[in-house]
């Protein structure tokens, strides 16, 4: 499917429907990004009120998911889309599930931040967590940009970044174990931190999933569970085909 395909339809209404639902996915993405942003801010500023606010605002994300889901069902039922349009609708349905999960993880991070705000802070002020959070935020941002621009190269970059995030999580986890063995009094805090790192790592995975849907949407290739090397090859081939056709 070429990018321009999105813009041409016999039925103008159909076109508008698709475009609108795509836009609302991106606004939902914006909301999720903001939620994540505020959850991290709550952690680094030790702002328990903000953390709880984030947890509370998760309903907004959930509400958007439900409404976009309904809209997609309506399009499937009344327009019976085919080919590229069908892939777009399927990719949207999957994307919003992952976005909603990212929202849930942000909610968890918010709650944990509120809890961590009331205990003693480590001298590093959670530097490792903030680093991990920055990378994860970039991944989510990149995934949504790739979705907006239908940019499979950008999507590929995000997929590649996921392994670095996994490694970072691993090292925070090991570090935590060491700290807990050294000083059992820190166990509660370190466990909370580990949960948070875990949530961040999961967000990275969800961002990666979204990128795989983008590749599916643009090239019609299912690239899940085939390894980064194979994804690269598929994207390379597909985009070359696309170029030769245009």
């Amino acid at each position, binding site marked *: 499917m070429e990018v321009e395909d999105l813009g041409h339809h016999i039925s103008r209404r159909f076109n508008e429907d698709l475009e609108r639902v*795509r836009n609302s996915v991106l*606004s939902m993405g914006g909301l999720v990004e903001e939620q994540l*942003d505020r959850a991290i801010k709550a952690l680094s500023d030790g702002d328990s009120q903000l953390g709880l606010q984030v947890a509370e605002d998760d309903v907004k994300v959930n509400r958007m998911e439900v409404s976009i889901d309904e809209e997609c069902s309506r399009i499937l039922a009344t327009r019976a889309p085919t080919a590229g349009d069908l892939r777009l609708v399927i990719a949207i349905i999957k994307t919003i599930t992952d976005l909603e999960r990212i929202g849930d993880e942000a909610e968890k991070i918010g709650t944990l931040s509120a809890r961590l705000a009331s205990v003693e802070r480590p001298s590093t002020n959670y530097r490792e967590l903030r680093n991990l959070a*920055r990378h994860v935020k970039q991944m989510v941002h990149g995934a949504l940009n790739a979705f907006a621009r239908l940019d499979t190269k950008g999507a590929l970059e995000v997929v590649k970044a996921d392994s670095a995030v996994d490694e970072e999580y691993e090292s925070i986890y090991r570090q935590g174990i060491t700290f807990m063995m050294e000083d059992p009094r820190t166990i509660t805090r370190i466990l909370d931190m580990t949960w948070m790192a875990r949530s961040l790592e999961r967000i990275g995975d969800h961002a990666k999933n979204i990128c795989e849907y983008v590749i599916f949407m643009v090239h019609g290739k299912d690239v899940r569970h085939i390894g980064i090397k194979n994804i690269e090859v598929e994207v390379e081939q597909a985009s070359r085909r696309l170029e030769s056709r245009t």
Partner: protein
Amino acid sequence: MTLPSRWASQIAALAGLLVTALLFGWWFGGAGWWLAGAALLYVGFTLRHLYWLDRALDGHRRVPLFETRGLWAEVFARVEKLRTKARNRKKKYHRLLREVRESTGALADGGIILNADNEIMWFNRAASNLLGLDQSTDLGHRLDNLLRYPDFVEYLKKPTGDGITVGSPRHETGWLHVQIIPYGTDQRLAIIRDVTTEKNVERTRRDFVANASHELRSPLTVISGYLEALGEAGDVPDAWQSPVAEMQRQAERMTRILRDLIELTRLESADAAASRDFVDVVGMLKPLVQEFQGRGGPSVELVLDTDAALLGKESELHSIFYNLVNNAARFTPPSGSVKVVWRAADGGAVFEVIDTGIGIAEEQIPRVTERFYRVDPGRSRAMGGTGLGLAIVKHALQRHEAQLAIASREGKGSTFTCRFPRDRVVFRSDAVSAVL
């Protein structure tokens, strides 16, 4: 109608040709054939020129001419002149366009042109630097798909006021100010400015005020405590009775000022919008107004025209209502009256305080919400004001998307009107349908 000379000469040449053909026909016989031959010759000659005219209009440079003067030479000369003119004009526009592009590109502020669907039509270099847009891929995409902050998306739908400040998508600590200006039929220009420095200065100032107020409060508590003890102790010499009482009053006033300062800084640094808790306005106003009744001040009357509730922050709403009623009560003589009104209007709700007090001069109305601005410094200070009440009201109202209108006539009284928008107001009928 007079023909230009080039046409006259052309017709003369044709006539000459035909007459010659006739002469030959008369001399040699077969005049018809001679005439036809001459006409054919002329048609050929014309066609040939038409062919070259066509080529010339296609942009062909060298045109062989049979005539150096006369109609065709003139036509070709004019075509050439037009082409030169067009070429020069094109060059001029090119240069102009390049200059415009270069100057807009050199602007420090980012500029983006959007169409009616918010699709990006054009943007300059600063915009691509500030927002991370890519000239090769992002034209034609919707701006709100690439800049996805919920606040910004809302603003783009309804661009009102003087823009919105959002975090920079490229620098974690950066801030951008975006303003949308509609122009033409349905095009819009987005101006983007880096306001990181302003934001930081603003924050430093706010932090300073907040810290200073907090730091001043603790020593003041100690002073107030001792003054109170002194006032209550019976063995203070008579000469010192009134100074101690005065010190107590001033210490109290200072505590109030600090409390208001802290409240104001908190309002300024909080998120743009207040939370949306259910606040029972009627239940809040009744005891609040009662507090002012029977104080020996003006008569205070509460008029409840609606049972609407608000979605907002309880403490801030209380602070709005209290400050407005308190102001009215202070600036109205005991013989006057204050009317506090809560009513529905234009879908939303209105809180109004109408007094018959001293009023405000018209030129001072816009300034009364500034911090520490006093219409009559001596008077308001004597009445125990902090000078921050209306500033707090203004900020708290902003956080509830409500508007403050002030109408006043000097010596007659003032009316302070707060309009709360529809989506902040809950009517009883809404509440019932929400439950069903």
